[in-house]
């Protein structure tokens, strides 16, 4: 196991004790991930049995939904493919309606290590003003993140632009390994971007006066199955997200009342 450049993962038991009283849920978006979804569920349980797990099945044609249900997870079966944005938003709505206090998003393809939820949790406990914690694959000392150069270039471009827009350093805005508190769940249950949502979501969060922070995590190559982003879609991805970012800059901002630190509702007009 390679060492992380940053501090070692916080002790699991200490983190678990801090969140013991909170209703917590893991949201696992999955599209044809029958090879990995079971392992992801078991690893989340192994980390913390107190996590409820909801698998959002975005129109899989394999046994993803059945496997997850057999393992006792909540399974939200979307009647047709909504894309990752619509799928994870279903998870946030579920979390919002069932009044969960914290939600963690873990991809169903096995690229995130549920054991590292401890890092995300620790960051949120350390600073209660933080509403979202992102796992960043670029804050570790390793340069070994397995992704084609084109995708890495795209990620760094988004990171550069976002950091300028929100005036805070963002190193990995496309990471889908994220922890949300109640306020962030509330916001994203109401409104979440469509196709490639993570980058835009950071900007949305900022506009709604919510705060985010990043912690270093490792990400793995997919454990199996096929990524939803093929090579041909990469260019479209870049252009779509860039457009979304610049449109997002001109979008309606939330109105902040004096003394109201973080509203999640918005009115039209900049």
């Amino acid at each position, binding site marked *: 196991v390679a060492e992380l450049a940053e501090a070692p993962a916080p002790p699991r038991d200490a983190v678990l004790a801090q969140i013991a009283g909170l209703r917590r849920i893991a949201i696992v978006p999955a599209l044809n991930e029958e090879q990995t979804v079971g392992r992801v569920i078991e690893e989340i349980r192994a980390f913390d049995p107190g996590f409820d797990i909801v698998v959002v099945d975005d129109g899989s044609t394999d046994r993803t939904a059945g496997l997850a249900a057999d393992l006792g997870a909540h399974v939200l079966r979307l009647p047709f493919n909504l894309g990752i944005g619509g799928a994870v938003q279903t998870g946030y709505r579920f979390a919002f309606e069932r009044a969960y206090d914290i939600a963690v998003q873990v991809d169903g393809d096995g690229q995130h290590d549920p054991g590292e939820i401890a890092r995300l949790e620790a960051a949120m406990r350390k600073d209660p003003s933080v509403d979202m914690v992102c796992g960043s694959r670029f804050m570790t000392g390793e340069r070994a993140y397995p992704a084609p150069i084109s995708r890495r270039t795209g990620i760094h471009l988004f990171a550069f632009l976002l950091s300028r827009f929100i005036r805070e350093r963002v190193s990995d805005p496309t990471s889908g390994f994220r922890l949300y508190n109640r306020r962030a769940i509330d916001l994203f249950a109401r409104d979440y971007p469509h196709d490639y949502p993570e980058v835009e979501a950071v900007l949305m969060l900022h506009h709604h006066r919510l705060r985010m922070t990043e912690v270093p995590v490792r990400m793995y190559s997919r454990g199996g199955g096929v990524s939803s982003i093929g090579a041909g879609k990469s260019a479209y991805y870049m252009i779509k997200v860039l457009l979304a970012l610049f449109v997002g800059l001109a979008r309606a901002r939330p109105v902040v009342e004096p003394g109201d630190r973080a*509203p999640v*509702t918005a009115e039209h007009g900049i």
Partner: protein
Amino acid sequence: MDTRIQILALIATGVLLFIVLELVRRRRLQERYALLWLVSTVFLLILAAWRDALTKVADLVGIAYPPNALFFLAFAAILVVLLHFSVVISRLSDQTKILAQRLAMLDERLRRQEAPVLLEAEGEPEPEPEPEPLTARRFSPR
């Protein structure tokens, strides 16, 4: 202009007008979308009936060849209609998304209720808080 072509144009636009109205009558076309078509059909009817209209309009905006004015107007009208459709499609896909999400959540709830045996096998079922309707609080200031 030949009178025959004018009669032909009048008949054609009349048929178009009839088709649009008939679609509305049979509830195959909603009034709100029929409106755009009705306006453009009436517009065509005016052009067909009033011979000099096109020439006058072309003169007014400085188009030398009157049929070009017609093409320009038709092109602009079609663009507006298509843009309108894109807006409608966006709204529909948004609504469809929300419906799919609701459906998935209701489906999950139903399956849980219909399979109580499975729940017991995993331990005591957790008490679920009353679901909070998302729409009720939408856009209300905090």
